[in-house]
């Protein structure tokens, strides 16, 4: 199982819109809640009320400042979880076969009962998507809510990952990125979705939509300037304009 499947039937994954994410951490905590209660061992917290609180999270929101050559610095919120890579190094390094990529949907999972907690899969992941749970001693990672997306005990509309369901800004999209006609694939095509660290050769399934260009309002002032042509220079003239305009109403 440690070998990757030649190909998967579908490539289920997330599309994350960096133009829309406001950095609220809703996805982080919803994920924590669902995955503490569901698939495998709970996500534990150490020193929960003390000096160094540190727990297992499968999704974390970073933030970066980008300073363009000209103009204001920009702040970009950056959620990050497992990208369910097509060429997932975390799978092939696993010595026990606990780590595997599902043939039917491409989800990368850890079979916790086979995991020896060696940590090598986390070492091999460029994205920091895997965290060893300190209470349970097994590797935890995003399951793409495999226990939600097919769950017949949930209404159909809720058969999506908990992070997607909860995202208030709608910055997270879920679907089959292997199907060029899926909504997510179209979104990626339209907004020029990108891979993280493409040079690593991992071929991530999850894509990121880049922020749209910012701070461009002054560039269009030449076009807009006529809109601001004064109706009159003096208040008196203004009242004259007023009269004329009102007459036409």
């Amino acid at each position, binding site marked *: 199982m440690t070998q990757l499947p030649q190909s998967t039937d579908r490539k289920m994954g997330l599309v994350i819109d960096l133009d829309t994410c*406001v950095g609220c951490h809703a996805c982080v905590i919803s994920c924590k809640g669902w995955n503490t*209660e569901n698939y495998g061992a709970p996500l534990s*917290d150490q020193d929960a009320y003390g000096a160094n609180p540190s727990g297992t999270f499968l999704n974390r929101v970073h933030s970066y400042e980008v300073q363009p050559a000209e103009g204001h610095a920009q702040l*970009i919120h950056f959620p990050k979880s497992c990208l369910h890579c097509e060429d997932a190094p975390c799978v092939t390094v696993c010595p026990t076969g606990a780590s595997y990529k599902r043939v039917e949907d491409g989800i990368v999972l850890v079979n916790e009962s086979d995991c020896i907690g060696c940590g090598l899969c986390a070492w091999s992941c460029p994205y920091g998507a895997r965290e060893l749970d300190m209470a349970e001693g097994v590797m935890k990672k995003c399951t793409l809510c495999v226990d939600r997306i097919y769950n017949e005990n949930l209404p159909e509309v809720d058969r999506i990952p908990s992070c997607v369901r909860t995202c208030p800004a709608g910055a997270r999209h879920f679907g089959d990125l292997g199907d060029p006609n899926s909504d997510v694939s179209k979104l990626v095509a339209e907004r020029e979705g990108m891979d993280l660290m493409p040079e690593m050769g991992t071929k991530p399934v999850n894509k990121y939509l880049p922020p749209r260009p910012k701070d461009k309002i002054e560039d269009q002032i030449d076009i807009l300037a006529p809109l601001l042509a004064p109706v*009159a220079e003096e208040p008196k003239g203004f009242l004259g304009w*007023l009269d004329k305009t009102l007459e036409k*109403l």
Partner: protein
Amino acid sequence: MNQPVIETSPKVSDEVRKTTCYMCACRCGINVHMKDGKVAYIEGNRDHPVNKGVLCAKGSAGIMQVNAPSRLRKPLRRVGPRGSGEFREIEWDEAISTAVGWLNELHETAPQKLAFFTGRDQSQSFTSFWAQNFGTPNYAAHGGFCSVNMAAGGIYTMGGAFWEFGQPDWDHTKLFMLFGVAEDHDSNPIKMGIGKIKARGARVIGVNPIRSGYNAVADDWVGITPGTDGLFILSLIHVLMKAGKIDLEYLSRYTNAPVLVNAAEGPEKGLFLRDEDGKPLVIDRATGKPTAFDKPGVRPDLSATYEKDGVTHRPVFHLMAEKYLSDDHAPEAVAKRCGIPASRIRAIAAEIARVAFDEAIELDQEWTDFRGETRSKMIGRPVSFHAMRGISAHANGFQTCRALHILQILLGTVEVPGGFRFKPPYPKPVEAHPTPHGDRRPGRPLEGPHLGFPRGPDDLLLDDCGTPQRIDKAFTWENPMSSHGLMHMVISNAAAGDPYKIDTLFMYMANMSWNSSMNTKGVMEMLTARNEDGKYTIPRIIYSDAYSSEMVAYADLILPDTTYLERHDCISLLDRPICEADAAADAIRWPVIEPDRDVRGFQSVLIELANRMSLPGFTNEDGSPKWKDYADYIVNHQRKPGIGPLAGFRGEDGNKEGRGEVNPDQLNRYIENGGFYVAHIPEGADYYKPWNTAYQDWAVGMGIYDSPQPYLFQLYSEPMRKFQLAAEGHGDRQPPEHLRQRIKNTMDPLPIWYETDQQGNEGFTVNALTQRPMAMYHSWGTQNAWLRQLHGRNPLYVPTKLMREHGLQDGDWAKVSSPHGEITVPVMEMAALNENTVWTWNAIGKRKGAWALQEDAPEATKGFLLNHLIHELLPPKGDGMRWANSDPVTGQAAWFDLKVNIEKADPPSDAESQPEFAPIESPVGTGPKDLAWKVGK
């Protein structure tokens, strides 16, 4: 390949209980998944009008709040000195009889000696009802130190403001402009709205010195100098008016722009010309004669003047043209002060004009206005705005909020498609609101609600000698239009015995000895100050909270509240409901779990106290209590016949909405319905609400109004002019001399901008702000094992330029001083920040011993409050007066007027942020070391 077979359809829960979130003020609907009778998982309720299924980090972390080790367990009676945190646990019997013993005497002899103030209270219509029946004038919630400028500015101008009063038309707007917002106010709806706008690729402009959160996703960022928003907005108004990019038809029909104003010197100057019925007059373009504004068929003129008895009357619009077309408001004149290039101001104005007028929306929807005219279309100007504390928490905030509303109105974007839309029970003009009441009559209730909207000097709460009736000096010449009270002045005034001494301070959910006060250290001293006889200056303090907050240590008697999943609540149309722009809605909380501690819902405790004291309003004629607990009150209380706290499922069969008899099964019906009720506004009634007959009729049917209340938007505020007239020497009720000039200056009936009082700020040149992280709500987040990992400490964010100037690097320490105090704290560089502004997260810093955290928790060692630098009073001017650090119009706490100086400092010897305070004894111990929370199998 043989891959493991996994269970992809595990059972999710035994049962889903639907209630209302209380992890912040947003009041989203939540699905609480239960396993083995315990809370297993919380998600958003898809059917709920507020959040439509989504849920923020706080909401999802509710499970950790309900399990928090900081929950109080039993009533407590203080045994150590105040502030020590030393208590003994007592039974409820003793707690109730102690409180009754203290309160009943006051009720019967001097009710004003009770000051009852609630903080993050979501039951204000009930708590104010209690206080009203107790008879004390001293009641308010936290609005005065939160956003009263926004609320009052909106109501006085257009009958409603942002957030609970209204929202952008997210589905149609094409340009959204956002001014400084506390990201926990209306948080999910704003995020959802921004998401919708972004999905359409429409433009978002953020005006905020700090480019984080919503401003980080804004397409254009305006990193404005704090406190100059009004100047910027008036400049936009200047440019738009000058270019004629204003909606004249809208102005003439729906605003007081055409209303005639007396222009002659004297006691009538600046007041409206009215007919015998008191209706403001306009010149009808058809007849050229003065006519009541609402006469059917009238075509109000915006420019004609009118002479009567030798007195010229000019339309409001004349005054506006005179004021705003002046070059003082030109972009070039304000650019430097605002920190925004003039070209940028013009570009923004042009874009607003383009979208409002070139991209106007037309909906084919017939509607009839209050003058009886039927129109075939609804014209939308798809520019929308939202603002909150960023513009309101300044001492010029009221006028700035008014300016923003004026901008919206000039564009014709209020209550039209794509613009700003009210949420029932708004729109509601000032006339439909009460005036304030503050009489004191031992043993008898107040004659009306405490809080209201003064129409002029006659409504001030001053006794015959001019002494304030209220302990917080609300509704006095210091802040005449203080519609939410001044909670931030209560402790300070009570300690100073100014205007009088009180006996008992009774507070609910307000962390006044920590992050909810300015001058935190001073407040601690006031709470523990003693008279010469050794007794405490504030003799008795009762406090109710669910958690071991910093304030607990400063009370004599603690009434432990439940968590939000263990209680009844109602989010009522009488109060701060959860309505949407196209629906009225209210909601409940109900005990989805039973408390595992000896605690009681605070509102039920208030009812028990009222019953023991036989407070009027709570007592039947035969002396028996009307209600046994809060749930009983929610169902059976009627404010007016047929109108109660909940609008849904009324009537014997539960099929009436708005008005209807009491339905004993009402709570069950709410529970079955997901914990809320929605009454949709009929199509065609959902825009132009203040003037739309269909809406007005629907609102009357719902019990929102007693009769239709069409009104004009008040570009020009006559109540303000009345206060100004008094300051000019007219009328019987005159302001004290030291306030006369200030009232003249600040009570301008048309929005102005003025520099806030800078006396004492010499040498303090850097603006300092706080923001709330989206994942934390005030001090509550810290006790939450999941949320505190997100924000366990707070650096001071310093712009790149100041970092370089002061030789600072990330992790260095800086001494930050203000005219009032100094702190020493760690810094972090931020480039996307106004270059003369520093800021930090609010309420991350914690006192050692509070919230069941260990004493070495980063919140207590590295975290800090900016509050130490802010005083509730301005620096003394040498006139012997106590000048509040508040807006002179409303008394809104001016948190964001803070100016500081920063310099590099050596790390404190213990590497802890300064000042440090001695630990308080935790009444609940500390939390467990490790957590792995999983319930059920």
